[in-house]
């Protein structure tokens, strides 16, 4: 991934001179999978994850991008908040459905999952699922959403050092389990 900055298209909508909106189409095109994966990691339901992404983008339409240092991190943070809202809403309604993993390997329906050894795939899935939630979130944002540590820190509203330390601890743990497997 590049430095995470997004070229802003300066737009001047009628009636609001000088307002620059977020280039949401560009951000969505580049980070579609990462945004969905983050939402799915939190909601554990594909339909709710899509609802969260949609809700976040619907709220972000028309937002003035001035004063937003990193639009990508801003969008990820909005999707994360929307996903948390979805979970809270589901708890209020008492909906109790089976949790879904962020990985498709369990389905065995994709060529990637067929090509990769099923045992190794299952191990990676189990190892990531076994991580503490805060570490798992950092790993997903770093490895699958391909954000920088600075962006992850902004998304999670945590200090940069905290995020980096979480990532290091989680990968050390994963590496230790990998060595056992190999």
């Amino acid at each position, binding site marked *: 991934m590049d430095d995470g900055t997004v070229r802003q298209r300066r737009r001047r909508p009628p009636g609001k001179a000088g307002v620059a909106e977020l280039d949401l189409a560009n951000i969505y095109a580049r980070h579609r999978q990462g945004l969905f994966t983050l939402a799915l990691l939190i909601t554990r339901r594909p339909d709710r994850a899509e609802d969260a992404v949609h809700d976040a983008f619907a709220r972000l339409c028309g937002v003035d991008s001035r004063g937003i240092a990193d639009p990508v991190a801003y969008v990820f943070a909005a999707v994360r908040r929307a996903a948390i809202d979805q979970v809270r809403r589901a708890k209020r309604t008492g909906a109790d459905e089976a949790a879904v993993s962020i*990985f498709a390997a369990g389905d065995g329906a994709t060529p*990637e999952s067929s090509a990769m050894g099923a045992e190794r795939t299952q191990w990676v899935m189990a190892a990531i699922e076994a991580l503490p939630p805060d570490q798992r979130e950092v790993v997903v944002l770093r490895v699958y959403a391909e954000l920088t540590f600075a962006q992850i820190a902004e998304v999670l509203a945590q200090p940069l050092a905290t995020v980096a330390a979480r990532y290091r601890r989680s990968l050390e743990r994963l590496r230790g389990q990998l060595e056992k497997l190999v």
Partner: protein
Amino acid sequence: MRPHEQDNSDAEFAEVEVMLRQVPLRRASAALDGRIAAACHRWRTVPRLWLVAAAAALVTVTAGAWALLEHAAKRSSNKTQITRVENSPKPGSTGTTAVSKPVSMVRTYGGIARDGIVGRLADGQPVERIRRQTVRQILILDPQRGTRLSISVPHEDVFVVPVRTF
């Protein structure tokens, strides 16, 4: 960990990261693309000026329809009044009248009322509103039965005319 070391951690954990990235992720449905496009489309392609113009047009149409309905209601209130004036033959009549067909007479009463200056034109010339109110009365006589039928039709014309100034 110092900040400049943080993004260089990929090298240290490169093997683990490669292994993690090999696991395929669950993908979003194609419907999500359409939903996102629809969520952002309305603000991207429809300028807000058009939204304001559409709202103004809606208000104009509503006001016009209201005025039209009110005018129609006012016109319907100007009902033609049919009054049965007399139904008994005059005493002393012999019943041998030569006239056998009904006879009708029409009379119109009218007047003009001036409301005075009600506004001004764009160039400042005042305009005066004038109402011409008339009642058309139709009287039908039936010699055979000895009855008279009176029908009154009120009518009003409103004119707005510019007033010449000196």
